[in-house]
């Protein structure tokens, strides 16, 4: 317990002067009891926001927020500059991506590695669906991606489909969360669809949390498909879907 320790609550409640704040932040790094107490405070208060009553959101708020975003000066990643001059400024350190709290080794290692390296990559900031995107620090290229929309009955489900080129191999990676529970004999099947014609593109069983992902080699997928869908099936890789669509989107 030092003189500084008494500032903990005021630090939490942001009522320290700038000078006090700097001193306390420094203190926090070397005082295990303050950092433990701070962590405890965060933990003990984490439920409190949910005491708030639901308030009708002003209908104009979203437009305001998005207008404010559009007014922001151009992103730190600027097309006209080489990537290397910008990478330092980009606010996403590599660690950030690991927020994928998956229990157990259910995400294929390749998929996890691809997702991690792609999503953390600053250069994706310039990503534009029309143009292949170079990815720094590796030979991975993100060729296209899409967020799939949940279909009725799977309202909370989310999924991302990405076409990724790694050296000579290109894969379709689909990563889904909040999937509805399956019966024992069921699985999730990914499809790519060229107009009306579907072809299977990998299947997976979700985790108990309803997460799952799968990669599929692109060279096995024929035609000019532009839609990715996920259905519930009882057998993998059928010639065409029999079950119901859970998620779908255009890539």
């Amino acid at each position: 317990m030092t003189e500084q320790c008494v500032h903990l609550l005021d630090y939490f409640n942001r009522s320290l002067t700038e000078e006090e704040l700097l001193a306390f932040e420094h203190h926090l790094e070397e005082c295990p009891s303050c950092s433990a107490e701070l962590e405890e405070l965060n933990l003990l208060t984490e439920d409190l926001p949910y005491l708030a009553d639901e308030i009708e959101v002003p209908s104009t708020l979203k437009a305001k927020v998005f207008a404010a975003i559009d007014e922001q000066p151009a992103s730190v990643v600027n097309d006209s500059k080489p990537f290397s001059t910008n990478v330092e400024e980009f606010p996403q350190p590599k660690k950030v991506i690991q927020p994928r709290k998956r229990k157990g080794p259910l995400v294929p290692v390749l998929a996890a590695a691809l997702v991690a390296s792609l999503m953390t990559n600053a250069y994706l900031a310039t990503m534009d669906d029309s143009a292949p995107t170079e990815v720094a620090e590796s030979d991975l290229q993100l060729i296209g991606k899409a967020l799939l929309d949940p279909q009725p009955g799977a309202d909370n489900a989310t999924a991302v489909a990405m076409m990724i080129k790694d050296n000579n191999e290109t894969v379709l990676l689909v990563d889904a969360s909040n999937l509805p529970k399956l019966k024992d004999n069921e699985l999730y099947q990914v499809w790519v669809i060229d107009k009306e014609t579907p072809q299977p593109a990998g299947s997976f069983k979700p985790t108990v949390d309803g997460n799952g992902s799968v990669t599929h080699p692109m060279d096995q997928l024929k035609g000019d498909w532009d839609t990715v869908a996920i259905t519930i099936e009882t057998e993998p890789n059928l010639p065409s879907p029999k079950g119901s669509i859970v998620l779908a989107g255009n890539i």
Partner: protein
Amino acid sequence: MKHTDDGTLYALAAAKDRSAFELLYDRYEKLIFSFAYRLTQDREIAEEVVQDVFVKLWNGTTTYKEEKGSFSSWLLTVTRNKAIDEIRRLKRHDHEPMIEKDSLIEQPGSVENTVEWGEQRNSIRNAVLELKQEQQEIIELFYFKGLSQQKIADQCKLPLGTVKGRIRLALKHLKGFIAQEGGFSND
């Protein structure tokens, strides 16, 4: 409010994927606005808080890291920080202590109960009701009003040195009651 995929959406949004950002926005707009309103008691300021939180998320001024806990907890903390900065900036609490009015639980019946976090709220609310009055009050002053330690001591007529202990005790009791209420935990 279970959304295991927040991390992925956040990572995409951080890489300036607008559709991912918009999904995150839609997912959290109501909670963040409602919480900001709970803290500031002012719709206009609450709107500014929401705007600030999401603009900073988009432009990378604030960044989420897994070590900080769940994305939702982090976002709520960022929201609270901005809200209490705003309250302080406007010095609202100087002239509106209003302890009577600002009970930890708001007047019932003012808002419809058809909410995404209604279940959580009910269990936390029930847990709050099990706290002693002065414990409810100190949580209100500390967490929702964001008062300084000295101001809490003044308002609760406590010696300065005992404030932290009282707050921790009240929060620990609350956490215990919440656990009994049927185990809402947010990730």
